[in-house]
């Protein structure tokens, strides 16, 4: 059997493996000063793509600031920001084809913007008006767009994970050369649906990219209270799929990993797991106050790793943007 355990060594005394047995490096391409590491292999990117990525990040940050303010003023009922995670979200979406289907968790509206969701469409959804594509049936930020291949957000966590496997399997049956990408957080990866979806994708050979935003917190629960293993990436290896851990605040690393994940998924009809190490700079949602569970010092430290600033410095270094 091709899937038989890969044991080719017999031992004669008890010897356990532990989480350190699995060595998982982290991919970094872009340094804090906007230069790339020596010998770094860059993703495929030109000025047009870089500008689109940057514009999407800036739009999203402004949207998040304005709409969080609108929520505080009582104009909308609820809001969630993706501040601090723009590189993970936009960098991965930028590696996709427009016919690749996105199944997001809820914090990925930057990805929807990248695909062309208009400012008016964002407002229609958040204000639940008659022009909302979702007919005013869901809370703010539960976007969906058939036209943009962005499946409608579902509040229950991780349900999109096995669904992404099913979407990708459908692509395979239809002979499409596309992938499904599934976004989720490290907290959602504790749900049964995560394990079900990854195992089925590996066994049934579905071209899906599982993109974990490991942002440090599931609302208020820190990662050390979420799992004891070697992050989420170790599980991908366990399920028998190609796996990579990347610096989620490094736009070029995320883009490179996702570009190659996509190529692998299509060529081999196989899933890939990407664990992006990042940090949720904002609150979980407008109903959350992080000061109760994390320190200002910790937040300030991560402010130094702002993914948009780092990418901007790289663009300036490339001469693709004026220093401002």
């Amino acid at each position, binding site marked *: 059997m091709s899937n038989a355990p890969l044991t080719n060594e017999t031992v004669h005394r008890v010897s356990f493996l532990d989480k350190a047995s699995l060595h998982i490096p982290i991919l970094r391409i872009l340094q804090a000063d906007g230069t790339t590491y020596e010998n770094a292999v860059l993703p495929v990117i030109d000025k047009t793509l870089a500008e689109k990525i940057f514009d999407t990040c800036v739009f999203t940050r402004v949207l998040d600031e304005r709409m969080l303010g609108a929520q505080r003023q009582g104009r909308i009922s609820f809001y969630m920001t993706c501040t601090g995670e723009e590189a993970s979200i936009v960098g991965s979406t930028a590696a996709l084809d427009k016919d690749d289907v996105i199944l997001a968790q809820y914090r990925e509206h930057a990805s929807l913007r990248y695909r062309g969701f208009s400012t008016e469409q964002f407002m229609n959804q958040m204000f639940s008006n008659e022009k909302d594509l*979702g007919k005013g049936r869901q809370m703010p930020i*539960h976007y969906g767009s058939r036209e943009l291949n962005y499946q409608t957000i579902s509040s229950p966590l991780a349900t999109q994970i096995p669904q992404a496997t099913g979407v990708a399997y459908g692509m*395979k*049956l239809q002979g499409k050369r596309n992938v499904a990408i599934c976004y989720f957080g490290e907290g959602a990866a504790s749900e049964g649906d995560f394990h*079900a979806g990854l195992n089925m994708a590996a066994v049934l050979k579905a071209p899906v990219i599982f993109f974990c935003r490991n942002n440090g917190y599931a609302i208020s629960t820190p990662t050390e209270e979420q799992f004891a293993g070697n992050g989420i990436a170790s599980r991908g290896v366990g399920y028998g799929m190609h796996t990579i851990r990347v610096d989620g605040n490094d736009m070029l690393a995320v883009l490179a990993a996702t570009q190659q994940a996509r190529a692998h998924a299509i060529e081999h009809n196989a899933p890939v797991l990407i664990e992006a190490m990042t940090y949720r700079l904002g609150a979980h949602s407008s109903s959350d106050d992080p000061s109760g569970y994390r320190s200002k010092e910790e937040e300030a430290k991560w402010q130094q790793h702002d993914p948009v600033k780092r990418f901007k410095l790289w663009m300036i270094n490339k001469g693709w943007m004026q220093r401002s």
Partner: protein
Amino acid sequence: MQEQFGRDRCFNTPLTEQGIAGFANGLASYGMTAVAEIQFADYIFPAFDQIVNESAKFRYRSGNQFDVGGLTFRTPYGGGIAGGHYHSQSPEAYFTQTPGLKVVIPRNPEQAKGLLLAAIRDPNPVIFFEPKRLYRASVGEVPAGDYQIELGKAQVVKQGRDITVLAWGAQMEIVEKACERAEKEGISCEIIDLRTLAPWDVDTVAKSVTKTGRLLINHEAPLTGGFAGEIAATIQQECFLSLESPISRVCGLDTPYPLIHEKEYMPDELKTFEAIKASVAF
């Protein structure tokens, strides 16, 4: 089936009901026809979230941009096979309370084929409960060609005057036998197979009860919270002035499905017969 349709279309999955349901939701959302099998209805509960929160709400929550209309769940339900509490349950009522799902239960092989084809082609997710004790017990002619039986339509399988006896699935055989006994005592029974529980055919049942003045509902699931309660409430609303006796329910007992007391648990022919007599003599 694998030889006929290929291993890409007909395949085993890893053992994860929530995964099967989630995968099927995704496949159907991409425009495919998906038939997902849960080995026993007793094991459908790990998939409950995917069915109740996802399948049932896919179209609604997206404003009709996405749907899983091509999805059908097949799952064997019910007792009578000495299977105890994990191979005998009838969980249909958990699903009938979820708008967005259709629930279908056939009574014999000929009905099963026509209803299953209709379920697969219906543009909504359907849960198709198969009475497992009939897999080996039931013998019936099945037409070879393609045919469908419309969902949402009950069938009057026998005309009668004095009482309407309503059931579905494997209990149809039981109530038919009970009605034969009653006929010998001069009670004329009208027998209805509900066939689809969600949405259920209120008109056919109400029309019958308006004529007979009495209703007995039989199901295998426990009495409390069972679908008979819903039918009784609706029919007393629709037919109040025509009723000659209280609506009667002959159902499973309010206990985990018992192994050694299976015969006592079941809403069998004799319990049904006694209830028919009591209703007519009220």
